[in-house]
């Protein structure tokens, strides 16, 4: 459609997304699958801005990572409930299959992993920060370079995408409470964790760090202290 192509070139990429499926990740987070006619596809790590419009015309807009790789005209978002928040309670509790929101996207070109990109990949996520990293993990193929994922969660019941993470490349770092059989005593990610479960700076991985701002600040600092080149440390702060 010439109109769509032209609008895309002009940067106006606001599309109507219809909710087609939801999956609970935890008691306070869920993945929303939308059908988005005209969606041009996306790169793993990109996000979309969701705009809600109330009947009186009031609008609210927030950013959400695309938590699955490109899949035709479908996108997935994975949203954590922020108590007293304006937008996340609607997305986690209220929106129903068939309801529509507006999406602006795909957005961003920095916090992305491209399949043709050389070099290993170190993903470090905290809480809902797993969302774009899960898209990267699923976008890789047998031909991709080595990946490592460190995923910081409070307790076993806070793990998103639980069924998908059972892999030697993935380490869950529990901060409050760990399941039986996990040797590491629960604590916040530290330098020893990076050494034990990450990739050495000498292998020059591209590092992707995502989650609440305080988590990202801590982890980017640890990576740089461990000798990773700041130019290869990419971060996405969710706020909070």
């Amino acid at each position, binding site marked *: 459609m010439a109109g769509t192509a032209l609008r895309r*070139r*002009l*940067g*106006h*990429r606001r599309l109507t997304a219809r909710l087609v499926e939801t999956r609970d990740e935890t008691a306070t987070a869920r993945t929303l699958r939308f059908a988005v006619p005209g969606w041009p596809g996306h790169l793993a790590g990109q*996000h*979309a*801005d969701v705009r809600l419009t109330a009947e009186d015309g009031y609008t*609210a*807009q*927030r*950013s959400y990572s695309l938590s699955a790789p490109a899949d035709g005209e479908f996108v997935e978002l994975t949203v954590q409930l922020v108590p007293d928040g304006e937008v996340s309670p609607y997305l986690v509790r209220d929106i129903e299959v068939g309801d529509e929101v507006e999406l*602006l*996207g795909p*957005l*961003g*070109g*920095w*916090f992305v992993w491209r399949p043709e990109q050389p070099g290993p990949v170190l993903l470090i996520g905290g809480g809902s920060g797993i969302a774009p990293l899960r898209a990267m993990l699923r976008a890789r193929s047998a031909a991709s370079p080595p990946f490592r994922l460190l995923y910081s969660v409070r307790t076993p019941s806070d793990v998103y995408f639980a069924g998908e993470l059972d892999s030697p490349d993935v380490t869950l770092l529990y901060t409050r409470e760990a399941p039986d059989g996990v040797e590491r005593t629960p604590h916040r990610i530290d330098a020893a964790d990076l050494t034990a479960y990450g990739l050495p700076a000498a292998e020059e991985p591209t590092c992707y760090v995502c989650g609440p*701002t*305080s988590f990202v*600040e801590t982890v980017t600092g640890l990576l740089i202290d461990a000798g990773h080149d700041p130019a290869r440390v*990419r*971060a*996405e*702060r*969710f*706020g*909070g």
Partner: protein
Amino acid sequence: MTDGHLDGNALAGPLSTVFTAEVTTAVAACAGCGRSGPLAAARVYGAPMGYVARCPGCDQVLLRYAEAPAGTTLDMRGIATLRLTTAD
């Protein structure tokens, strides 16, 4: 704890209403200290009606973006040069 600031990734949507290219990957040189880096790596404060992006080197304001019913205002005086890469 932190102040909950964001980073330049959050500017991708707002700036897409002004620029046709993906600007968060563009390399911005700070008019204050001369430091260069992708706009995506700037510290970003405030949301959702307006944003201020600050230089991670010297904290100077690189860019201000404000949306109002009367129109959108973009102040980029803190950026000496903005170099768009051809990769996107």
